[in-house]
């Protein structure tokens, strides 16, 4: 079991800073997912942990030891690459055995480890094949197998599923979760796909522009985003975020956006005239009668998926909202609908984008 700690990690390429001082504690045995948009520095951070990139400043600690000056080969970590990085001229067996042979492990032990890993990943029948004779999914298993046989201190995954088709990705996702449960090792996983992050992680680290936006359990990030970036990034479809002005009303406040006024109770931290952003996930907006409505919106598009319906609608003076409803709704384009935001699941952010409150009802 291995704990990985990052202390004030900075990384610059020439004049360009890509990582701006990251502190993070990856607890032993946890499945930690780095998630964020392209260019946010998540892969760079993983490569820094791996030892494939140096740091400009800061410390990387593995099990309490500073490893900044240790090369990748001596950190005892295994990495699964996005491109699989299998040696094309070697058989699957040789690919998996290569790292073990480097350490001059006895042949019987190498054979045992490779065969055990192959059996676990159901690739025993492909051991004699070259990588080019395998499908994408099989190659990915070989890449994972190559990591497993080394019995590493921790596994590092760099967008390992992004080259697979959607169906295979779902299958491999489940297998990775099962693998973590079985092996129990520390795993750090990089992805830009928040669904992968939500389904695999014990802990998600949301990165943006070289900074950590929030660290937490998947549902914690979903329920309690600390800023508009996390609110918008976690959850699919993304949260509706609307800029509004705070107005005083009977017994509380109302948030004015376009022609709509959304009433909220007294909330500490807001005052009349404040500019705020309120957020509501598509699944937290109900279609109601006119009398109970916060917002009236005209439907731009209705996506009927059978078991659920997505409505894309635009209220007067507001950006487009996404509404998720279970079942099949006979609503057509151009129709006006009346919407009510579930206050218990509504989020309020200040003008800087930082959270004021998650859930505005008493």
């Amino acid at each position, binding site marked *: 079991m291995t704990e990985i700690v990052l202390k004030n990690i900075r990384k610059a390429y020439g004049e360009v800073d890509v990582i701006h001082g990251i502190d993070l504690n990856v607890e032993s045995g946890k499945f930690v997912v780095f998630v964020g948009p392209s260019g946010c520095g998540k892969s760079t951070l993983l490569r820094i942990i*791996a*030892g*494939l990139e140096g740091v400009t400043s800061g410390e990387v600690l593995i099990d309490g030891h500073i490893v900044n000056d240790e*090369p*990748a*080969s*001596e950190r005892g*970590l*295994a*990495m699964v*690459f996005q*491109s699989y*990085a*299998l*040696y*094309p*001229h070697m058989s699957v067996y040789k690919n998996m055995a*290569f*790292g073990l042979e*480097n*350490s001059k492990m006895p042949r019987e032990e190498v054979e045992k480890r490779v065969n055990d890993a192959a059996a676990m990943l159901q690739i025993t029948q492909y051991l004699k094949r070259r990588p080019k004779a395998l499908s994408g999914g099989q190659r990915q298993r070989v890449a994972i197998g*190559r990591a497993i046989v*080394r019995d590493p201190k921790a596994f590092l995954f760099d967008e390992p599923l992004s080259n697979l088709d959607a169906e295979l990705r779902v299958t491999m996702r489940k297998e990775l979760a099962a693998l973590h449960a079985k092996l129990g090792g520390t795993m750090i996983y990089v992805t830009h796909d928040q669904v992968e992050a939500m389904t695999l992680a014990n802990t998600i680290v949301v990165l943006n522009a070289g900074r950590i936006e929030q660290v937490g359990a998947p549902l914690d990030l979903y329920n309690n985003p600390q800023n508009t970036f996390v609110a918008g990034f976690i959850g699919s479809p993304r949260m509706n975020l609307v800029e509004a002005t705070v107005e005083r009303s009977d017994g509380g406040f109302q948030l004015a956006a376009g022609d709509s006024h959304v009433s909220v109770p007294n909330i500490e931290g807001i005052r009349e005239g404040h500019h705020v952003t309120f957020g509501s996930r598509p699944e937290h907006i109900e279609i109601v009668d006119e009398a109970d409505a916060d917002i009236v919106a005209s439907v731009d598009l209705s996506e009927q998926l059978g078991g659920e319906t997505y409505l894309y609608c635009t209220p007067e003076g507001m950006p487009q909202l996404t509404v998720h409803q279970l079942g099949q709704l006979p609503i057509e384009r151009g129709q006006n609908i009346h919407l009510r935001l579930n206050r218990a699941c509504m989020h309020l952010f200040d003008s800087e984008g930082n959270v004021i409150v998650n859930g505005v009802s008493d």
Partner: protein
Amino acid sequence: MAHNSTAQSDEMSLGDRFNAVAAWPMRILFGLLDRPFRAIQRLFGIERMPYIFLLPNLAFFGLFVVVPLFINFAFSATGGTNLFLADRPFVGTEQYRYLADCGSYLDPSTCREDRFWRGIYNTITFVVFQVAFMVLFSLVTALILNRKIRGRGFFRAAFFFPVLLSPVVVALIWKWILLRDGVLNAGLTSIGLDRILFFVDPTWSMFWAIFVSIWAHMGFYTLILLAGLQAIPPDLYEAAEMDGTKRERIFWRITLPLLWPNLLVVIVLALIKAVQIFDEVFVLTGGGPGTATQFIVQYIYTTGFSNQVQNFGLAAAASVVLGVVLFALTLMQLAASRRREDN
């Protein structure tokens, strides 16, 4: 906005006018060709038309490559000194037997045509050393140029420039350096050493023939190997690093096997080129001293064209022998290329 669109339409109309002018000779040409080609197509059918289009090139290739090949073969079966084939007596395999008439094939002086055998032995010596060292130097240079070194672009260009020079220019440059009063000897004498008469000593002559030829051609092979090295995904090196692979083992187990298809092509191409060596060494050493650097192509040239008695038959027979060797090497090269494509 209106102004812009007017300007655009003016520009367009200028372009259109240019196209119209440029197109009329083509229209006339197409008009002239249309009828005969339609007739040809009716005659042969549309599926045979590609062969019709290939015909001019094939005719050219046939006239200047295939026909001379057969003429050369025919010459090799004739004797005498007459130029025209019709005037030459048929001697069958006599020329080949003459070339092959040796007391011992290991000792050229026991052969009737000892210059031919000396040419062969010189060529073999040249090929073995030149190819081995050129491939080695090209590989080392490519490995260095593939790293992030300072001035990489400059060095890449510098190593390739000699390839652009004509063989005669290459030879003259090195002659200027190596002659009795050349730059190198001037350097040697200036530091108190004796002059070396490079082109008087057979070993030095062969050394410089090999050296200059490597200098002139290694840029080309370096380029092929550099392209091969750059085609190896960097991920593989990172994976090997994560696997705890030592640097030498990375070279032997990752780089070399993945570069091998390119290396094989380089080796075979260098072999073919080395067997054909003539021009730069001919200008540099003239084949001397004696016959120390006289190679097989020079033997063919002097026998057929520059000796007082121009023995076309013998030269043609030697050409056929050389042709067979080159053909075998070319087959190897094709096999190597195919293997590279398969990988």
